[in-house]
Structures are given as structure tokens and as C-alpha cells.
């Protein structure tokens, strides 16, 4: 872990949608092999930040450096060779899974598909466990399979930086874990820096090395899992939580379920809610 060189440097970027400021002076650095989770309530600027880094949006101020190159000075195809982006929502279409992954080679393909391109696609298909769907149209897939295809497409790009906007939001628990494991393993083995927008705090705590808490377009806190404190979470989400330790992993448990809105998903999905230990913790409070 760690030890990677700095891949991404975001230096004081600002962005606004017409008169509404979505990002204010956002600064952070990300190393290779590191998984960073961006946390924050809806509308705090998480997706906007990812889109700025993927050069889908252009920040009004500040610089984004990828391996010391200013993103705005790079040709968009060069950016696509280095940055893979997985959007929040994807739809299937009349393209086979194989072709959908092959699309990830687009920035590298000059005119025709090479042996190497096909080889990489086959490898990623195997990695994502999608072999048996290779020649199916993506509009015939379930939500979980489609999401795997989209993540796979980003991996096929062979990026140095992987940006994922809520990669697990529509998936069942098994697929959530599977996708997160793949992202972690690939990041570590290929020294890719991954940045994920997440709402599931426990999944984030389990798989990420670094956290970035955004509130109203500003960074509230940045650091390792020690910044996930009841105080910080109260401040961004407006809910009271307990943080307990289970099998060496910190687990976020909201105190008053009826009172939390943006948090519901997190607590419902928490498997340990059934554990006695947790029940006692809640009743103690």
C-alpha cells in the first residue's frame, strides 16, 4: 500500500452551474494504488468534482494535474488514455458486451482493432466474470451485470486514474462486494488511483484507503478512516451516529433511524444490524 507516486493533483478548482457555486477551492492529491472515497450528502458537489477530473466539465478556476500534466492542456484523447470514468447511470443498448468493453479501447485504437485490444477485452471479461454474456446485447443484462460491463469498459481503457460515480448504488450485496473487490485488486496490482463517490459509508470504510468529505462544494475533512468520526458525520449528513468496531472494521451505525433521511440506505444495507453486539450498542445510547 501507499508508496505510489502522486497521480492526481487537484489544485484549488472552482466550478459553478450558472450562479450556483458547486465547487469551492477544492484541493487534494491522490497516489497510485490508493482508493479514495468521496463522501457527502446529495448536492454537495461530489459528481461535479468527478466530472471536472474526467474533463466532462471545465472548472472555472484552478488546475488539475495528472502525472504533472495539466489536464486542460491535454488533448481529450490523451486524457481518455489516462482517465477512466464510470457515470452514475448507464443504459444498455444494441451492442454486445464484448463490443461495449471494446469501446474502452477507443482512445488507443487508431483505425482497426488489434490483437492486443481483443486480448485485453477477453482478459477483463474473465476478470469480471462476464464471459458467458460476451455476445449478449447490453440491453438484455440485469442492473448488476450492466454495471460490471461499464466498470469493465473503464478498466479496458488501461487508465492511471479510475473515477467511479456511485459504482455500487444499484447493486445487490453480493455484486457490491464483488465490484469493490475487483476495483481494489486492480488498483493495487496495476497501481491505479481510484476515486469513488459513495453513499454506503460502511462499504467505503471497508474498501477505501482515503476519505474526502465534501459539504456544499468545500472539503470538510480529508484523511484516512480516522476522519470518519461521529462529529464529522453529524456535520455533513445531520444525523447522529455511533461508530463501533466489528472484526477490526469500523462500522457506522445511525442512532435514530426514523430521523435520518439521506442515511437510510446505509443503515438498511448494514448486515451487522442483526448482530446482538450492535443491538446492545444502540439500546445503550
Amino acid at each position, binding site marked *: 500500500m501507499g508508496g505510489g507516486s502522486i497521480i492526481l493533483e487537484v489544485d484549488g478548482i472552482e466550478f459553478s452551474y450558472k450562479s450556483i457555486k458547486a465547487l469551492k477551492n477544492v484541493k487534494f492529491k491522490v497516489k497510485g494504488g490508493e482508493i479514495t472515497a468521496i463522501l457527502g450528502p446529495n448536492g454537495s458537489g461530489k459528481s461535479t468534482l468527478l466530472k471536472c477530473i474526467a474533463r466532462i466539465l471545465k472548472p472555472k478556476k484552478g488546475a488539475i494535474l495528472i502525472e504533472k500534466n495539466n489536464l486542460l492542456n491535454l488533448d481529450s484523447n490523451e486524457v481518455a488514455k489516462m482517465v477512466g470514468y464510470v457515470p452514475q447511470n448507464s443504459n444498455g443498448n444494441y*451492442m454486445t458486451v464484448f463490443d461495449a468493453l471494446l469501446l474502452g479501447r477507443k482512445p488507443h485504437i487508431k483505425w482497426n482493432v488489434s490483437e492486443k485490444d481483443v486480448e485485453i477485452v477477453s482478459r477483463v471479461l474473465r476478470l469480471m466474470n462476464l464471459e458467458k454474456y460476451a455476445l449478449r446485447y447490453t440491453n438484455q443484462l440485469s442492473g448488476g451485470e450492466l454495471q460490471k460491463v461499464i466498470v469493465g469498459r473503464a478498466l479496458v481503457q488501461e487508465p492511471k486514474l479510475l473515477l467511479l460515480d456511485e459504482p455500487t448504488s444499484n447493486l445487490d450485496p453480493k455484486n457490491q462486494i464483488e465490484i469493490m473487490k475487483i476495483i481494489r485488486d486492480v488498483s493495487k496490482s496495476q497501481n491505479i488511483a481510484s476515486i469513488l463517490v459513495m453513499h454506503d459509508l460502511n462499504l467505503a470504510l471497508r474498501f477505501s484507503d482515503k476519505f474526502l468529505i465534501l459539504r456544499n462544494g468545500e472539503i470538510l475533512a480529508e484523511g484516512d478512516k480516522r476522519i470518519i468520526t461521529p462529529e464529522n458525520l453529524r456535520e455533513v449528513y445531520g444525523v447522529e451516529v455511533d461508530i463501533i468496531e466489528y472484526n477490526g472494521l469500523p462500522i457506522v451505525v445511525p442512532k435514530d433511524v426514523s430521523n435520518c433521511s439521506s442515511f437510510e440506505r446505509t443503515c438498511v444495507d448494514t448486515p451487522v444490524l442483526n448482530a446482538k453486539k450492535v443491538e446492545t450498542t444502540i439500546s445503550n445510547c
Partner: protein
Amino acid sequence: MRFIEITRSFRLCSCLLFLVSLVLGVVAKENSRNKKVYDFKSTNLETHTISEKYREYIKKKMLFGFFLTLTLFLASIYSLCVGDYSLSIKQVFNTILGNGNAQSNLVIWNIRLPRIFAAIVVGAGLSVAGAVMQCILRNPLASPYTIGISHGAMFGAALAITMFGFGGAESIGRVFVSNPYAVTFFAFLGALIGVIVILILARLRGLAPEAMILAGVAMGSLFTAGTMLIQYFANELQLAAIVYWTFGDLGRPLWKDNLVMFGIGIPAFVYFIYKRWDYNALESGEETAKSLGVNTERIRLFGMLIASLITSVCVALVGIIGFIGLICPHMTRLVIGGDHRYLIPISGLLGATLLLISDTFARTIISPIVLPVGIITSFMGAPTFLYLLIKLHGRW
């Protein structure tokens, strides 16, 4: 004698069409059967690697393209033989090789070949333009006609015929357009103006693709209202000329007109093929496309401009031919999938083949009367499309 000839040509034409739809059906069936095998016997894949399977799949697409090319070739030969003045295949080849008599030379070189050429270029042009528009506007209903191009052309033609007196009818009842070039030019202007208004709006106001379609529909109804107003005040002869112009007729373009269509069609086709990966990226969504390095605004602008240009030229020269631009790309998509590397050329081939067969049919079924080919394309294409739609979607 005449009757026998009619039934013969009817049989041959329907045989050709039947063959095309049969192969469409078989390929579609093959595709869906394949999917099921994958479901149940996934272990099967261990013997074949994924990349081999993929190559087989690509080969199938190529085979389909090859089959269409062959059909197009056979249909062209057949179309050269039949008509008011029947020719044998031997005579046709002799004439093409330069050994024909005066009569066959005239029929082949001045009447049938330009007509066949026009059918192929217009069919391919409309179909490819439709495929590209459906992709860049992200709407299955997008076609050269839904965004108001044909209405604009009709308005331009009506304006030229009435206001500027370029059309009329002879006393015998034969309708004519006295200055076809002026009418063509006005139709072309009318067709392009609508699109240019939409593109300027899109550029200045940042219209989303959905809004562009709606703007196209609005422009279309504006032009329709204008045409109706002109028709209301036109005299009978002018009215007849307008209606006559509206029916698409592939016999209208001369060799030089064909060369104009060809000259615009080929570079446009090369451009679309060059950008095939960008269209595939757009198909996966705006943001994904941008993250893959596609300048989506520029692709959309140029795609629309070029697709509209081909359509405008075709519509101005041959009149309105429905169905091809909307349905051919969908038929192709249903059969070989939405990968634009194959979708663009193969929907072009399919459009050319269908239009040529329809036109041959249109001019032989109750010869010497030539039916407007647009009627035939819709009558034959729509049921075929419905059949494919039910066959494929019913299966899933």
C-alpha cells in the same frame, strides 16, 4: 402476353423480397438461438476462447453484408432486364460491354442504369443518414424526415412552382415541371434551412438532442402550414405539379444529377465511417462519450450537417421517399446489432437493396404505369419491419 409479363415480374420481385426477409429472419433467429446456448451451457465456452467466439460473431455480420451485396447485384441485373422494353441477360451484358444496338443502348444507358444508380445512391444515402441521426440525436424516431427536411423541401418546391412559375401541366394531363433545376434548387434550400435553424439554436442555446428533435418537428409543421397555404391559393395546374413533385420518382435524376448525389454521398460516407467509434461512444451516453475523448457537440453538429446535406440533395433531386431513412437502420440494428462499424455500411447496403427492389417492382407491376416508389417502400417495408420487431422482441 402483357398479363403474363406482369405476373412474371411480380413473382420475381416478390421472390427477391421474400429472400431478403427470409435471410433477415434466419440471421435474427440464429442470433437469439445463440444467446440461449450461452445461457444453458456456459461450460461450452471453455473449448472456444472468447475472442474466437467474437470473431465468429463478426464473421456472421460480414456474411450478412456479403449476402446483401450479392442481392443488390442480382437485383440490379434483373432491373436492367425488365421493363417496357424487355431485354435478355445476354443483351444487357452485350450493351454494357458496348456491343448493343441503338435501342438497347438507349434503354440501358439513358433510362435504366441512371435509375438503378439513383436507387442505390438514394437508398444508401437516406438509410445511412437515418442511422447516424438516430445515434447522434439519441432517439429511435429520428430520421431525415422527422426533423423536417422533407417538409422543408416540399415547401421550397411548392414555392418555386407557384410563386416563380416553374411548373404547370399540359392539356393532355401530363404534369410537368418547366424548370426542374430551379425547383430542385428551391427544394434543396428549403430542406437545408430547417436544419440550419435547428443547428444554430443548438449551438447558441445549447439544445439537448431531445430538444433538437422537437425543434425539428416544430420546423416541419411550420413548413407544412406554409405548403398548405401555397396549395390553397395555387391553381389546378400548379397544384398538380406540386403533388407530382412530392411523389418520389427515381426516374427524375439524370447522370449528372446522380454524380452530384454520388459526389456528396461518398465523402459523407467516408466521414461517417471515420467517426464510427465516436458514434459507438455516443450510444453509451453523453458523459461516457466525453470521458472517452469525444467532442460530443462537434460530432453532433457535423453529423447533423452532413446527414442533412445528403438527405437534402436526395430529396431535392428525386422527391420524397418515405420509410427508408427511418426503418432501414432499425432493421439492420435488429439483425446485426448497434455497432456502428457494421451498422453504417450494412444499413446503407440494405437501404440500397430495398429501394432498388421496390423501384423495380413499382415500375413493372402495372407497367407502363410507374407507381411512386415511396408508396411501395412503405407498403413492403412496414410489414417486414413489424415482422422483425415481433419476431425479435417476442423472443426475449
